[in-house]
């Protein structure tokens, strides 16, 4: 099992409501949890500007909102409704989000409402307390269902958590010493290539082009510190999503000619296989689908817009810490 640390709170979302939907007389009366699926609704206003990067001029709302909403709601519910002890460390083993209808994600200038209908199902119950939580959500913007989000949380004892981290760091350090992941520094892309305006918001380097099927991107974990929400001394969990987006945009521009300012991540499924350790080089590999012909492997969605699937993996040395499937759409 491998994961990223989960935060307790972040300012990404602004103020929001979380409503528990009672399904039985006792949950109605006492607002108590039960060791079974519990349903919630998350509600917030989407910010005028990007919650993390300010006035980027991005044409679309960012998937970071539903991902953070799901994570924060789940972490809170785990403690409050499922009685997971404070001493257990909450980690995310899998996470996914996707856009099912692009239209509501377009910024229109007015403050849109985002809502998540959440189902949280406890798993691996021991003495009435879950060791895991499966989270599923349907995302709506201004009342229109337009996306999904899901996650699988695991609640680890401190000992197991420490053991995982130490073993992972050791493996990474040993392989780094053997020369894995030593690609030099190919430079940084212009912010506009990743949908930003500020150079400090660029979290991936230019790709190393050694192979015709895989692009390697150095990921600047240190730069993410202070920009993305996270716990001190840890790589921010949102880094995976944002680095996937940035690397995906560059890859799609290079491989398929997508315009970065019109491209957006429409699907993202991550499986975390290990802890990314702060202070160690992190890099991301991106490969796209191939076809038999010479044409690039882009498909078209129902509206005729080009879209493509990408496979990403995050590495520290020879250790794969996250494996991601993503899709990018050029919205014209």
């Amino acid at each position: 099992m491998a994961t990223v640390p989960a935060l307790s709170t972040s300012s990404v979302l602004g103020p929001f409501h979380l409503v528990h939907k009672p399904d039985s007389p006792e949950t109605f009366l006492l607002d108590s949890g039960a060791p079974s699926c519990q349903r919630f609704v998350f509600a917030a206003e989407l910010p005028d500007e990007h919650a993390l990067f300010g006035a980027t001029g991005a044409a679309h709302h960012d998937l970071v909102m539903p991902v953070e909403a799901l994570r924060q709601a789940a972490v809170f519910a785990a403690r409050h409704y499922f009685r997971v002890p404070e001493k257990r460390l909450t980690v995310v083993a899998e996470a996914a989000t996707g856009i099912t209808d692009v239209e509501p994600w377009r910024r229109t200038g007015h403050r849109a409402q985002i809502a998540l209908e959440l189902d949280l199902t406890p798993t691996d119950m021991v003495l009435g307390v879950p060791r895991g939580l499966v989270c599923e959500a349907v995302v709506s913007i201004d009342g229109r269902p337009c996306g999904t989000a899901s996650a699988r949380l695991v609640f680890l004892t401190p000992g197991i958590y420490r053991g995982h981290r130490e073993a992972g760091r050791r493996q990474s350090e040993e392989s780094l010493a053997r020369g894995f992941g030593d690609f030099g520094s190919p430079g940084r892309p212009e912010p506009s290539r990743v949908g930003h305006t500020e150079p400090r918001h660029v979290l991936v380097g230019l790709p190393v082009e050694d192979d015709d099927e895989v692009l390697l991107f150095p990921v600047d974990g240190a730069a993410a510190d202070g920009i993305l929400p996270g716990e001190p001394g840890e790589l921010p969990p949102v880094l995976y999503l944002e680095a996937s987006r940035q690397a995906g945009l560059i890859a799609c521009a290079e491989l398929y000619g997508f315009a970065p300012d019109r491209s957006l991540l429409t699907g993202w499924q991550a499986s975390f296989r290990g802890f990314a350790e702060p202070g160690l080089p992190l890099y991301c590999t991106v490969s796209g689908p191939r076809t038999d012909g010479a044409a690039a492997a882009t498909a078209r969605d129902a509206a005729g817009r080009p879209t493509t699937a990408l496979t990403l993996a995050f590495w520290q040395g020879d250790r794969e810490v996250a494996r991601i499937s993503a899709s990018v759409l050029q919205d014209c």
Partner: protein
Amino acid sequence: MRFRVLGPVRVAPRTPTAAKPRAVLATLLIQSDKVVSTHTLIDELWGTEPPRTATTTLQVYVSQVRRVLLEGEPDGRQPLITRPPGYLLRVAPDDLDLTVFERLRETGRAAYARRDYAEASRRLREALALWTGPALSGIPHGPTLQTSAIRLDELRAEVLEQGIAAELRLGLHQELVGELMALTREQPLRESLQGHLMVALYRSGRQSEALAVYRRARRSLVDELGVEPSPALRKLQERILTSDPSLTWRPAAPDTPSRTPAPTVPQDAPAVRLPSPLPDFTGRTGELGLGERFLAGTGPVDSRVLAVSGRPGAGKTAFAARLAQAAGDRFPDARVLLTLRDSGGRALSAEAVMAGLLRVLEVPAGPEAAEDLLHARTRGRKMLFVLDDAVSEAQVRPALSVLSDSTVVLTSRHALGALEGVQHLVLDVLNRADAEALLVNCGGTAMSEDPASTAEIARLCGGLPLALRVAAAGLVARPHWTPAELARRLADERGRLAALRLGDLDVRGSLLTAYRDVDADNRHAFRVLGLAPLPDFALWSAGALLAADLPEAERRVEELVRARLLEAVRRPDRLTPVRYGFHSLLRGLALEVLAEESPQQAPPATDRLCRAYATLTRHADGLLAPGRDLMPAASAPPAGLDPAAVVGPAPLRWFQEEAPGLLETVRQAHRAGLWRQCAALASAAGGYYEANALWADWQESHELGLDAAREADDSLAEAVLLRSLADLEWQRHHPGAARDLYRLAWQLFTRSGHRVGAGRCLTGEADVLLGLGRVARAERGYARALSVARTEADPRGEADALRGLALVAQREGRLREALDRLAVCGAAAGRAGDERWRAYAGRRAAAVSALPEAPLASQPLEVRPGVWLFPDA
């Protein structure tokens, strides 16, 4: 077989899309169960010029391959393991086509060596059948794969040649000529194939062509390679030229002549009167199995009559015919289907049934009674009768008594429960998968290419086989339509039956016969119950619609259930364990005939239904949130409806079960112009919607209710609904809209002189301000609301305002004050009779007591029961 290398490299269930991971996989497969070094793999992928990132990139590919491999491992065990200095892929012997090929090759060669040419041919052909193209194709080849591909192609050629040699020895020379000609054209320099072709032609009496083959082969060898044919081929040419007798194939000793078949004994032709089999009969696997066991005499009931019942259009006739068609072996003397209605759809009498049976059995009339004739004709014979579309037990009882030695499958709409010693089988609608399969089978590629629309059509047809067949046939008959277009047309419930008509296939007509078969009272009940809300309804709804007490309503609905015009669903875990509902097509029919035959019955029935719902909803809401709803009752409850008996002590469960019907009834009330009922009903449901955050239902019902209140010029109702809509916007965390609505509601309450309502609006607005962090203004609002509530003796309003004041105190760090206010809040909630609010006050007090002296402003707050506010961090 999971892995294939004898052709394009493939792995089940999914092959990596990129070429290089496939090359990695192929290299590991060729050397499966052996360690392949990292260097070998890098050489294979990049040759002598690997990139700087070769090791890492290889790892990415290995990772991709591992992901693919894991998909096919049910136990989740990774077969590709790291084993210094590289990787090792574990493959079960039967999982790799190459391993199987090599095993078959060995077996075939061994058989050939012991002159078992038939076995050799079989094994070697099996080995060849594993090939799907050139070995290891579709991937770039490095040195390892290149060598392996050459070796494998050579092995294939060898197996092919040995297989042909075995078949020539079996005397299959004529069959082999065509194949050999094609092979020699592909590989003109392969002398062994040329030799086989020469032999095959010679043995087929085509000596000159055999010699021409030699000439062509020699020309190719000389032109291409500058060499003469091998001595073996030259020798073969000589033997053909001299008609060497040893070259002639000698068959084995002739087979023992087969025994002359016994002369057939002429028999009476059996009577078979069955409809043609439906080529696209679909599904019913379980029911057919049960039917077959019945016909075989191994069913659960020792019986000779199978009574198949089901609603009109369920496919009873097709099902029974299918059983009979497949039972020829068991019933050699007769298999007959007799329809028990005349051409005008009228039921045959018992005597006519008997006469019909004699007619189909071609029994000439005689002086004896029909019973005697039929008995004599069927006695001791193995006969199967399908008596189709029976209307009553009395209609078939005489025939069943006469057919005492025969097996009978009886079909009817309602179960003929009064028949003795009968095995019953109910045909329901098709399940989703079978319904979609039937559409595809009947509708062709258009259906199969649009699975989403096909699924929607299946749903709209309610899985009814007749409707599905008509829908599919309609699409075939109108090739310019798409499944999506058909689904769109069927989506309108009132036009659905009209859309399901094609030639003599008429779903409406079929359903209508069932309607016409019941008496006038039940036809009335069927029509009026069409107004009952979807998806199902409780008995009290039927009572309201029929203006009947519960026993009478139950008698009516049960008769409709027996006539298959209505469905009863038993759900023991529900508050109302038996609920009733229509098949979607029958509901459409009910509404059609209501509009055609007695439209004047609709408005009063709808009014009664609305009043019943309003009465029960207000009662349930009063238990759930006492004093919440400020809307006065709009109308008197229907006579005989006892809310306490219906809702019982479980208002939440009642709401959970009735919520879909409740919303549907709000819509109906609005459509019918029952303005006050509509507004009152929406308002009464508000507490349940709020507690469960059912935003979509909340919004729709309240917008309809608000419109109705305005139509009725009822400003108090308007204020009540606006305040609830403000609560909705507050819960949605839409502060601007919530504040506007609270203010609007406050104005209307004030104008109506309703101070309690106005005071509660102040609390709502204060909640908005608190959420925006304007704590001082929020506190003033709560204080004003508290003053109004105390003046007006509104304990619920008082508890609500005190809740807000306690939240303010907590946010300001005045924890002692917060606890005091929560104590008073709990007491007020107790006076209001609201246990949920009392529990909330207690819970909040416990949470405040556990806080540190200086609580963080960013901590989540349970601002209303079950609603948490997460302030900006």
